[in-house]
C-alpha cells in the first residue's frame, strides 16, 4: 500500500471537498477520467520471452519480464507419464483437442511482484500479485494458451518489478506493463505433433506470439486492471497519491477486450471493440488510516472550556461530520457509485477505450 501522505487533516479536508465538486478539481488539473501521461516500450529484456517497461509521468516505473518453461503435466490421479501417449498413439483415447485443452490449469501461471523497500512476502505485495493474476486468468482462456498437449504444458513465470519508489498505489502501472509484456510474449514454435515429446523450431523469428497480432484474431486479449476512486459523488480514474489519501472508496476494476469474428457483410461500423468486465475488487484506501480533524469548537486550546462539555462535543463531532473538518471515511461504497463506475469504464469511448487505444499505439518489439 502506498506510503502515508504527510497531509494535515485540514489539507485532507480541503482536497476532499474540491474533489467532491462537480466537475471535480484535481490537484494536477486533470479531468476526472484523464490518465496521467505515460511512456512505454516492449522487448527491453532480450533474454525473456516477452517484456515491457512503462514509465508514468510522476516518475514511477515498472518492468515486466515473461519467461516460459516446459513442464510435464502431472495427472492428478497419478499414473505413468507415457500412459497418455501410449493411449493416444494406439488410437484409444484419441482426442478432441479442445476438450483436452480445458484441462489447462491456472496454476501454470506464476506471478511475483517486487516493490522496492518491501519484503516479497509482504501481505500487500502478495495481494497485488494475486489480484493481477486473478484478473488475467478470469477470462478462462489464458491458461489454455499454455496447453501444449496432454502431456506437456508451458509454465509461465511473470515477474513484475517496480523500479521506482511506490509513489502511488502501483496497481494500474503494473497491470498496464503486464498487459504489454504479454502482448510482446512469444513461445517457440512447436514442431512435433499430438502427444509426442514436444520439439521446437530453433528459429526465434518463427516463434508465434502468445496473443497473435495480425489477421482476424478472436478471443480475449490480456486483461487490464484500472484503479478508480470515489470521492463524494465524483469518480476519479488513475488517482494520484494525494487523491487516494482522501478517497471514500477505491476499486480495482479488471476488464478485457474480446475480439470477435466480424460477421460477413455486417452492418456494424463501430470500432468493434467488445469490452468485458472480468472482476472488481475493493481496495482499502489509505484514507482510512488518516487522523481525523478536530473542529475548532471542540478544540481545547482554542476555547478553554471544561472537560465534560468538551468530551460531549467531541462525541457529537464524531457522529455528525462537520463541513471543513476532516474525518476518515467509514463504511462501504454506495451502489450508485459502483454503477456509475461501471458505466464510466465500459461505455463506448470511455476510459477503457482510451487506455486500450493508447496501449495499441505502443510499438511491440
Amino acid at each position, binding site marked *: 500500500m502506498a506510503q502515508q501522505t504527510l497531509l494535515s487533516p485540514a489539507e485532507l479536508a480541503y482536497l476532499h471537498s474540491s474533489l467532491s465538486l462537480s466537475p471535480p478539481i484535481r490537484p494536477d488539473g486533470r479531468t476526472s477520467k484523464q490518465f496521467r501521461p505515460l511512456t512505454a516500450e516492449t522487448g527491453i529484456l532480450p533474454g525473456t520471452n516477452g517484456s515491457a517497461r512503462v*514509465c508514468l509521468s510522476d516518475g514511477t516505473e515498472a518492468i515486466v519480464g515473461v519467461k516460459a518453461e516446459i513442464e510435464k503435466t502431472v495427472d492428478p490421479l497419478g499414473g505413468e507419464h507415457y500412459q497418455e501417449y501410449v493411449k493416444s498413439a494406439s488410437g484409444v483415447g484419441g482426442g478432441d483437442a479442445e476438450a483436452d485443452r480445458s484441462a489447462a490449469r491456472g496454476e501454470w501461471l506464476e506471478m511475483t511482484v517486487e516493490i522496492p523497500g518491501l519484503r516479497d512476502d509482504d501481505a500487500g505485495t502478495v495481494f497485488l500479485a494475486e489480484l493481477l493474476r486473478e484478473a488475467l486468468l478470469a477470462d478462462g482462456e489464458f491458461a489454455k494458451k499454455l496447453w501444449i498437449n496432454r502431456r506437456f504444458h508451458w509454465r509461465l513465470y511473470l515477474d513484475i518489478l517496480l523500479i521506482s519508489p511506490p509513489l502511488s498505489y502501483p496497481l494500474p502501472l503494473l497491470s498496464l506493463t503486464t498487459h504489454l509484456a504479454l502482448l510482446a510474449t512469444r513461445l517457440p514454435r512447436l514442431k512435433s505433433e499430438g502427444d509426442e515429446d514436444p520439439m521446437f523450431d530453433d528459429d526465434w523469428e518463427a516463434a508465434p506470439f502468445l496473443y497473435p497480432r495480425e489477421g482476424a484474431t478472436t478471443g480475449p486479449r490480456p486483461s487490464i486492471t484500472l484503479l478508480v476512486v470515489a470521492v463524494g459523488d465524483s469518480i476519479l480514474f488513475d488517482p494520484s497519491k494525494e487523491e487516494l489519501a482522501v478517497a471514500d472508496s477505491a476499486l480495482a476494476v479488471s476488464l478485457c477486450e474480446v475480439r470477435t469474428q466480424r460477421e460477413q457483410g455486417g452492418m456494424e461500423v463501430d470500432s468493434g471493440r467488445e469490452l468485458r468486465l472480468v472482476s472488481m475488487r475493493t481496495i482499502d484506501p489509505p484514507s482510512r488510516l488518516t487522523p481525523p480533524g478536530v473542529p475548532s469548537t471542540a478544540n481545547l486550546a482554542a476555547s478553554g472550556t471544561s472537560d465534560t462539555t468538551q468530551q460531549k462535543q467531541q462525541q457529537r463531532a464524531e457522529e455528525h461530520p462537520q463541513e471543513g473538518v476532516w474525518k476518515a471515511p467509514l463504511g462501504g461504497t454506495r451502489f450508485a457509485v459502483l454503477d456509475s463506475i461501471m458505466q464510466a469504464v465500459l461505455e463506448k469511448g470511455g476510459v477503457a477505450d482510451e487506455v486500450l487505444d493508447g496501449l495499441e499505439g505502443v510499438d511491440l518489439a
Partner: protein
Amino acid sequence: MTSLKRPQGSEQLAQNISNKVYVRSTRSGKVQKIVREVYLRTDIPCSSNLCRACLSQAPRNAVNEALPFVLSARPAGTKSYPQGHYLVPDTNALLNAMDLFEQSSSFYDVIILQTVLEELKNRSLPLYNRLVGLTKSEDKRFYVFFNEFRLETYINREANETVNDRNDRAVRQAVKWYGEHLALTKAVQIPAVVMLSDDRDNLRKARAQGLHASSLADYVSELEDGDRLVDMIAESQSQAQGGFKQASQQPLYPEYYTSSRMMTGVKAGLLHQGIFNVSPYNYLEGSIKVPAFPKPLLILGRENINRSIDGDVVVVELLPQDQWKSPSTKIIEEDTITKNENADTEERQDFVSDKERKALQEEVKRTQKASGEGQLQPTAKVVGVVKRNWRQYVGHIDPSTASKGPSQGRRLDSVFLIPMDKKIPKIRLRTRQVSELLGKRLLVTVDSWDRDSRHPVGHLVRSLGELETKAAETEALLLEWDVQYRPFPKTVLDCLPKEGHNWRVPESKEDPGWRDREDLRDLLICSIDPPGCQDIDDALHARLLPNGNYEVGVHIADVSHFVKPANAMDTEASIRGTTVYLVDKRIDMLPMLLGTDLCSLKPYVERFAFTVIWEVDENADVVNVRFTKSVIKSREAFSYEQAQLRIDDESQQDDLTKGMRMLLMLSKKLKKKRMDAGALSLSSPEIKVHMESESSDPIDVKTKELLDTNSLVEEFMLFANVSVAAKIYEAFPQTAILRRHGAPPKTNFDELADQLRIKRGLELRTDSSKALADSLDKCVDEKDPFFNTLVRIMATRCMMSAEYFCSGTQSYPEFRHYGLASEIYTHFTSPIRRYADLLAHRQLAAAIGYEAVHPSVRSRGRLEAVCKNINVRHRNAQMAGRASIAYYVGQALKGKVAEEEAFVMKIFSNGFVVLVPRFGIEGLIRLRDLADPEPESEYDAETYTLTTKGDKAVKVELFQKVVVRVHDDKDERTGKRGVKMELVSA
C-alpha cells in the same frame, strides 16, 4: 499516452553491436531462448597475400606475431577467370561435393565463410570435420573468414526472411566485400572472387549484384580433368537439374516418422531403437538388437527395411504377432535376384519385384509348415533413421548395367555399383566414364536414398585400380575396414628421437634415461616369436633362486618411454589403435623406427624395458611380484620352432636353455591351473599363406602349427597381464584400462546346443565357462579329430567379443574375462602394436611411482572414448586380416583345383555352408550349382537335413564330412575372383 521507441544507433558504438537470437532445446527437455551479443570488428584480415592493409592491422598474439596469410597472391586461373580466382563455396556446394574440394589437382585458395562452416556443422558433422581437416592442411590454402564478426560483412536478418535466405545473403555480402576489398590493393592482377553454389536462386541474385558466381558443374567443366571431377558431385544435385527425369510418381517406401514421434515412441516403449544389421546370407533380412527383447527383432523385406543400410541406427516398430516369422533358412543374394535391372529406368509397378516376392513367398510357406511356435521371432519394420552410418563403400560397376552400345563419347550413364560388402545394397551411380571405370575397384559415397528411389544414389570418389591387382585389392580392404594406412605425417615423425637408428641406451647411469631403472643386463633373457618377427614386444627369463623358488621375468618393450602422452605421435597411435597385419603387409601403429628398432627387444643390444618379476614356488604359485622399469640385453631371439628344438635337445645344458626349460615347466603348470579354473580353449581356423619372397605371390597355404613354445609365451603373457591388471586397478579404481569378456547369454548357444543334441546326441552345458569347457572337451568324434575343432569354432562364434573398458564404467563382477576365466585382465604385453597396452604401461608406471600421472591417463571421459575407438579398431583389424587371407587364398589357388575334405557348418533350404580345414575358408554351395535345373529338394529343419532328388540325389546333414572340389573362379559378370566350391561326394 505515448509510445517510446528507442532510436537505432543513437549510441556511439551501436553499430558494432548486434545480437543473435535462437531457441535451444536441451537434452533434458528444457527449451530456452538464447541471446548472444555479437561484437563486430574491423580487424579480421582477408588473409590474401595481396593485401597490405589487413596485414598491418591483423590481430597479433603475445609475441606480436600475426597469423601468416593463407591465400596465394597469384591464385590459379580458369577459362572464365584468367586473372586468377578465389573460391567462396556456399553450404550446398560443400554438401554436394566435398570430395571435389579434397582433390589435389584443383580447388586451391578457397575462402570458407563462418556462416557456411556453421551451417555445415548443423547439417552434417562428418562433412564438417572433413572441412576442418582441409582448412588445417597448409598446401590446400583454405581460409576460414569470420564474416559474422566483421563489421562490413555482418548483416541483420530482415523481416520475414528465412534463415537460409539470410545466410545466402551473408555469403553474397562477403563475396561482394572481398571483391571490393581486393580492388583496393591496386595489385596488377586482382583475382576474381567466385561464389560456388548450386542454389539457382542464389546464383541469380549474385549475378544481379554483379558478382562472380558459378554452379559447381559449370565451374568443374572448365577444369582440366572436368569429366572425371564432375562425377564427384553428389547425385541429389544433378537430380535437381533434371538428372533422372521422373514424374512425381508414387513413393516406393513408407515415409519416416518425425523425430519427435520416434523419440517419444522409443521413450514410451512403443518403438525400439538399435543398430540395423543385415544378414550376410540374405540381403532382404535384417535384424536389430534392442534392450526390450532377449532375441534380435527380424526385419524382413524391402519395404520393412525401408531404406536402412547396414550399420544405421534405426527406430523400428513391432509388427503384429501373426506376422512373426522365424529367421530365413534360404540364401538370397541381391545380385542373382535383381540381376537384370536397368539402372536408367525404374520399373515402378513392381517395386517389390516378382522374383523378390517369390523368394519371400517360399519363405512364408516354409515357416508355416515348420510351425514350431517356439521358433517364431518377433518381426518389425523400420519407421525412421536416427543416424546414418554411411561410410565410403568399395565396389565395382555391374557390367550388365553398363550400356551395351558402342561408347558414345561422354554420355551420362546410370550404372549400378555392386559393393564388396554383401550387406550393402546396390548403389546407383551416374557417370560419364563408364568405359574407363568398368573392371575397376571404385570408392563411392552414398548421397541419399529418397522415398521414390528403389536403390540408394551415390557418386564416385575415386578409382582404386584394376580389379584383382594387389594394390587395388589391398587398398580396397583397408578402406572397407577403415584402416588408417596413410604414411605418418611430419608432425608425428618429429616426435621421434633425434638420433634415429643410432639411438643407444645411455652409457652413463647418471643420464635421466636411467632414473629409477634397474640394470638387468646381466640376466639371461631371450625372446620367442614367430619366424621373421621384427617388432619384438616381449622377452623372458627364469632362474632358480637359492631358496628353491624360481624367479621369472617378463620384459616388455618400454614404448611409453618414447611415446609421451598427448603429443602428435600419441594422438596418431590412439586413432590407429592397433597394428594391422595383412598377409603381405603390416600397417603400423607406431612409426617403423620405434616399432622395429628402438622399442623392439632385439637380441645382443641393450634396450629399455618394463619388467614384471615374480617369485614363484614349485607349483607356480606366486610368492611375490614386482614391477620395474629396466634395461635389458636379450641374449637370443628364437622362433617358436628354434626354441622348441633347443629345449628338446638334451645336449644343450647352458644356463639359457635351462632357463627356457624352467619356463616351459612353469608354463605347463600355469596352463593347467587356468584350465582347471574353467578357461576355454577356443578355436578359429588359423592359416598361413606362404609367399615366394621376390614376387610376393602366394604359393601355398598352410594351417598354423602349434608348438609347446607357443603356449609357453602365451601363458607368461597372460600371467603378466593379470598381474598388471590387478596392480593398476588397485592404483586407479576408476580409470584403469582393463579388458573384459562378458559371459555370453544362454540363448546364444541355443541353436548350437540343439544341433549337437539332435545330430550327435551330445550335450552342451553353458551355465559357466568351466561347464562349457568341459562339455566342449567331450564333443569328440573318434573317427574325426577335426570335429572337436569344428564345434569349438562354432562355439566361438556364439560368444561375445572381448572389449577394453575403463574400470569406473563397470562393477567388479563385470570385469571377468569369460574365456580366460580370470577375474581381472588387461593388455600389457604388446605396446608396440596395441594402444591399450601403451595406456596400461603409463598407468603402471604411475602406479609404481615412476612418473607422475598424466591428465590424459586420468580423465575418465577421454579414456572411455579411447576404449570405444580401440575396440572398433581392434575388430576392424581382425576383419581386415581375415579378408586379406581370404583374398590370398583365392590367389594361391589360382589355376589350381584341389579336392579337399570339408565339414558342413550351416544348412539352408537351398544350399549349405562348408568349412575346408586345410585352407581355413568357408564356402557356400548352392543347390542350383549342383545341377541345372536346380534339383528339387526337401529341407528338414528339425533334423538339419537337406535331401535332393533327381539325378543328383544327395543327402546333406549338419557336421557331415563331405569332399569338395575347391578352385578359383572369376565370376564373369561381377569380375570378382573368389573361391568356388563344388560338392564331389556327400
